[in-house]
């Protein structure tokens, strides 16, 4: 049996890649590598200009949890009951967290340590987002290649390296679920398309694993859980049902659901909650469809029609019954507010103020489509057009994904993140389809010896290509025709476009950075060193994660908004008069109250500006809270002359403006002039009876008050 081996050795040269193929491979690899480097580097502005630090709110919790995971191990993390948050309730972190990002960081950390690189876990966490953006590039390339072709894949990979919508969520230091989840999501999409194309169990199995990773990383996994069944339905409706689809989806649903149930936060939701029901229904439907098809092949046509009707009536009746029973017995969970707000963008602002109070849950302004997608927003329709020109199973998935993402991005600003990859893939297709044919034309121009008859533009173009050709292929005499796309890419990337995008992204990063870095005193470590170890700190929920991260102290509420009434109670503390606030504080066993006040510095996203939300949210625990009492007579929200009587008496107002009226910060402005609101505060002189100033940072940004003890007598 030595013969075959001999044969293969004989023909190694012919079997192996031809020179052309090898070069193509090399070029593809080079372009991907460059895209990865670019995407990694432009996300490092924050670290280069400032320092290696975790930004914003949620990343602080993720960082804290990762530290627990690394220092105490998996089991401790899994069983972690965090008594330092949601005092006095505490939080079962192991069961209420998406652990994907923490495990990813911990894995990288352990690998690096095993390779004798003793990096700090903080640095690993800071670099997670840029690293995963590189992975996203590669995965996007494969996704687009699967849907369209290599050229489009390379374009898409280059686009996603720089698209602002994704860039702004994945700068170094924004160690959030999304930065891992986008990679996982696109990997999932790639594997879904691949498994539907091939119908292989192997790829379907890999899809399930990618889905597990996605479920472990982000609550946005519901998007995949729902878009795959919709995709299956659409394919069936288009008459594109095949055995491949059956194998792929059935495998995915069964194994994927089982795997997703292993994540404790999801658990039995995967078979109980309404958001996951679509997948189940489509699964059942697919089985029925397959069964009917099988019957059709066995029985004559007239019998089949009868059978078909009976079968569908029976299945429909059973389904209705099951749905009724499940809902009636409470097995099936009700739709959550976030889901309703997806369908009706105005739902949250009407019914759930806590969802509406988050800036990134607001509906998207049209301008941000351009700001987040830049030129891609114009190329997406072209991409969809080209998709329809050459329809296959994968392309249908892409179209579906693109249109759904576009809709959801309109509902919530943060979901722009989901749209960005779709826009990149579609624009990649559009670009490749538009430019590749023209490259051939350009090449023809260049080959004509007689230059005189060409216009200036064409001359420039062809000389560019000439330079590129000479640069890359010296005189190997290889036919460059097939590398036309590459020439365009190089031409393109050395042109204005990259410059514009990079500058644009840089400016975007810096805007975010300026916000992040205007908090040096915000992240004042005063609490960490100068309060008792078991001190409880009350602040509005935005700062919960940061306080537990920076100061390692117990907080009453934090950014994980799982208990609305607790948040509402904190809101009630802040909007009550001092005496009442003191009473609630004592009930909550609060030692310190922290407020963020930007009036002296001009920092506009401070507590006074957010104050309407505590008022609205606290309405749910105390219906006597009347929003109009906090407003001026004509219904405006002002802190100056004519401010609402309840506002002036509220604890928030007093804590923010305590002794503020005595000081004149700028020469031009009178004492007590609030720079953010642009007016002199209404009540300048007052004393605190139940609270005392414990600390105020240099710019008055952070003000911490100690809750006085109850008097000994009376």
């Amino acid at each position: 049996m030595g013969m075959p081996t001999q044969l293969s050795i004989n023909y190694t040269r012919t079997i192996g890649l031809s020179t052309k193929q090898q070069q193509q491979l090399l070029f593809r690899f080079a372009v991907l590598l460059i895209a990865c480097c670019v995407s990694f580097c432009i996300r490092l502005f924050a670290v280069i200009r400032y320092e290696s630090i975790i930004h914003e709110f949620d990343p602080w919790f993720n960082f804290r949890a990762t530290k627990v995971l690394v220092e105490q191990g998996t089991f401790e993390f899994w069983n972690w009951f965090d008594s330092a948050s949601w005092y006095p309730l505490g939080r079962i972190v192991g069961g209420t967290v998406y652990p994907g990002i923490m495990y990813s960081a911990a894995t990288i950390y352990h690998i690096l340590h095993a390779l004798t690189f003793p990096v700090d876990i903080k640095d690993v966490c800071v670099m997670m987002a840029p690293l995963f953006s590189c992975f996203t590039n590669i995965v996007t390339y494969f996704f687009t290649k699967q849907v369209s072709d290599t050229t489009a894949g390379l374009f898409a990979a280059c686009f996603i390296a720089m698209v602002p919508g994704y860039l702004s969520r994945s700068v170094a230091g924004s160690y959030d679920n999304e930065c891992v989840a986008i990679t996982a999501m696109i990997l999932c999409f790639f594997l879904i398309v691949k498994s539907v194309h091939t119908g292989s169990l192997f790829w379907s199995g890999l899809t399930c694993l990618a889905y597990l990773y996605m479920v472990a990383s982000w609550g946005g996994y519901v998007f995949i859980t729902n878009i795959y069944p919709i995709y299956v339905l659409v394919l069936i409706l288009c008459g594109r049902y095949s055995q491949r689809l059956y194998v792929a989806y059935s495998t995915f649903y069964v194994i994927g659901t089982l795997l997703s149930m292993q994540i404790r936060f999801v658990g039995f939701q995967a078979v109980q909650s309404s958001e996951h029901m679509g997948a189940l229904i489509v699964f059942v439907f697919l089985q029925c469809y397959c069964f009917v098809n099988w019957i059709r092949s066995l029985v004559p046509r007239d019998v089949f029609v009868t059978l078909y009707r009976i079968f569908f009536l029976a299945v429909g009746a059973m389904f209705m019954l099951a749905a009724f029973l499940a809902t009636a017995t409470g097995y099936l969970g009700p739709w959550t507010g976030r889901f309703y707000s997806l369908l009706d963008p105005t739902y949250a602002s009407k019914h759930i103020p806590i969802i509406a109070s988050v800036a990134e849950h607001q509906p998207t302004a049209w301008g941000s489509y351009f700001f987040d997608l830049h030129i891609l927003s114009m190329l997406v329709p072209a991409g969809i057009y080209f998709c329809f020109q050459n329809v296959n199973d994968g392309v249908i998935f892409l179209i579906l994904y693109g249109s759904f993402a576009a809709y959801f991005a309109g509902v919530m600003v943060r979901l722009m993140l989901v749209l960005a990859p779709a826009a990149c893939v579609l624009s990649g297709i559009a670009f490749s389809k538009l430019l590749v044919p023209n490259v051939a034309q350009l090449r023809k121009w260049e080959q004509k010896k007689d230059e005189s008859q060409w216009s200036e533009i064409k001359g420039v173009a062809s000389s560019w290509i000439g330079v590129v050709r000479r640069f890359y292929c010296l005189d190997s005499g290889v036919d460059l025709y097939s590398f036309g796309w590459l020439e365009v890419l190089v031409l393109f990337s050395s042109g204005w476009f990259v410059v514009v995008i990079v500058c644009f992204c840089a400016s975007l990063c810096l805007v975010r950075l300026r916000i992040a870095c205007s908090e040096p005193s915000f992240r004042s470590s005063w609490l960490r060193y100068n309060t008792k170890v078991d001190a409880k700190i009350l602040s509005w929920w935005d700062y919960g994660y940061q306080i537990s991260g920076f100061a390692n102290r117990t907080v009453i509420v934090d950014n994980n908004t799982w208990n609305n009434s607790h948040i509402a109670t904190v809101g009630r503390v802040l909007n009550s008069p001092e005496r009442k606030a003191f009473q609630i504080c004592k009930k909550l066993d609060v030692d310190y109250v922290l407020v963020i006040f930007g009036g002296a510095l001009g920092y506009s996203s401070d507590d006074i500006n957010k104050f309407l939300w505590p008022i609205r949210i606290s309405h749910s625990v105390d219906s006597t809270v009347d929003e109009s009492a906090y407003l001026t007579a004509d219904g405006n929200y002002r802190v100056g002359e004519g401010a609402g009587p309840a506002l002036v008496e509220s604890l928030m107002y007093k804590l923010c403006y305590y002794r503020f009226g005595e000081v004149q910060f700028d020469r031009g402005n009178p004492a007590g002039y609030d720079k953010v609101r642009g007016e002199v505060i209404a009540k300048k002189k007052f004393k605190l009876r139940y609270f005392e100033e414990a600390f105020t940072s240099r710019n008055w940004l952070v003000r911490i008050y100690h809750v006085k003890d109850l008097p000994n007598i009376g």
Partner: protein
Amino acid sequence: MDAWKRRLCVLFFVFSLFQIAYSAKEVHNIERLDRTIDLNKNFVTEKVVIKLGKGKWDTLELIFSLQQYECLAQVQVEDSSNHILPVKEQQETEVLFRKFVVVLGSTPEDTLKVTSLYMNCLKPKPRVIPKDGDQYLYYESYVRFYCPYEVKEQKTTINFPHSQFHFIEQEKIPQLSFNGNKAILGPYKKVPSMDSMTFGVRFRHNTPLLTGSQVANTLKVSHWGWLQVLESYDLENKGAESKGGFSRLDFQSNSHYYKPVVEDVVARLPTEARDVSYKDYVGNITSSHLRGPDRSKGRILQLKFRYPLIGGWKNAFFIGYRVPSKKYLKSLGSNQYQLRVNIPPSIRSIVIEKYVLRVALPEGAKNIAWDYSVPFAFDNVNNETMFDLLDIQGRPLLVFEKRNMVPTGMNWGSLVITYELKIWNLLEKLLLPVVFILILLAGLSLASRLSLYLRDDTEASNSVCLNNLYSLHCALSDTYKEAIHNFSIMKGSVITEQFSTSYNSIHARLKELELQLELLNKKIASLGNVKLITRANQLTEIDKTKHEILQRWYSTTRSKLSNLSSLEKEIGQY
């Protein structure tokens, strides 16, 4: 019985009296003793000039009550010509005091200077003061110098920072007099040994009692040129707390509003210090100034805290820098190296409760010996292991610990560490990654050459044959296409020779391919798979026809070309 007992008692008493008298004869006297206590700083300096009595003094014993010992930072004894004498702490512990023994030289001087530093013995009293109030400190000590000798005459002078001070129960202290900022106790005559009368004094002193509860200084030596230093500080202002928290407005409007407050400290770094960093748990702290290098003082780093430290407040931060190691590291030949390490941390204005000096030597250092002559230097020395970049076994880490340290207290000299390090250990760090990457690439290239298909052998060989067949045919048809393409782009005046040479080269390649194809066909025939054979035959048929077409096309084109060239010649003739 009673009488007997009484007699025995008397006997015993007389005996013990004798014993006391005898031992008293052995005990030396101190002629004269002048003590100066300095309360101007955040630690206490006690200087005692002792004039020894007559007799032969081999050793001098110094005793410190447990309370004093707790606060004692260091003891230094000099003779009249300012030579430092060795001091040893006696290990066997008494219940009430600790004993230090000074070994006097062979030519004993009659005057000795004992300097002892105490820290943490100044307590704010009251603990809590009004925000703008002055800080009062309380100090307690012995009225007469606490020593195991009888002193013929002694006097104590106390220097206060301010004239505002008062002694507790002043009337009970004998011979107390005042002179401006000074208080003088004594002179006292014939003071018996171990006189333990104490006095307490409360005085106004607005210095912040800046104390490092733990200061760690970690040095990493590299033979590649740099010595890394990372110092970590846990600071606390142990002064009086202010009542009712901290008011930013008052602090901003008047920087002297809070009296015992510290906003910044100064660190003295070596002249060559580079890449200085100042950070804390949260991240980089931007409020610092680096000055110098100044020839005499080195570089000065002024560190401003994130918030002012008023009494009772704490802070923690890190300072890091690096210096070229050639100044500190010396080769002694034959793989022996000597390292000199400065002992005190770079912030000198504080007192330190626990100081830890860690020196990490390069990985693989052996036969480590350290030498430090200054007494009292360290309480504890440990050998540990540290893992840093590319370390496999870990680096040896020497950990020196000291309780109570006053960095400015004395000339610390330097710690000398010698060790042995082979050249291989130096190169290891370079070679390891290189070898690792080489192995990785080799592994990758090996893996790409392996065929890991799990298939039946005959089927595998069949499929290999088929694959080969297909790729051969592809190559063939590629060559055909290339030929036609080559010909088609030859335009204008094409010379017949050029045309035929290009055809010949193509033809040679075709021949080669066809030879291979023939070989392969034979193999396939020998394998005896019917399907394969028929497929191979079909493909060969197609190739044949293609070849024929090409040949036909070539011959016609060639004849046309030769016609053309003959026509051209004819035209040329006319």
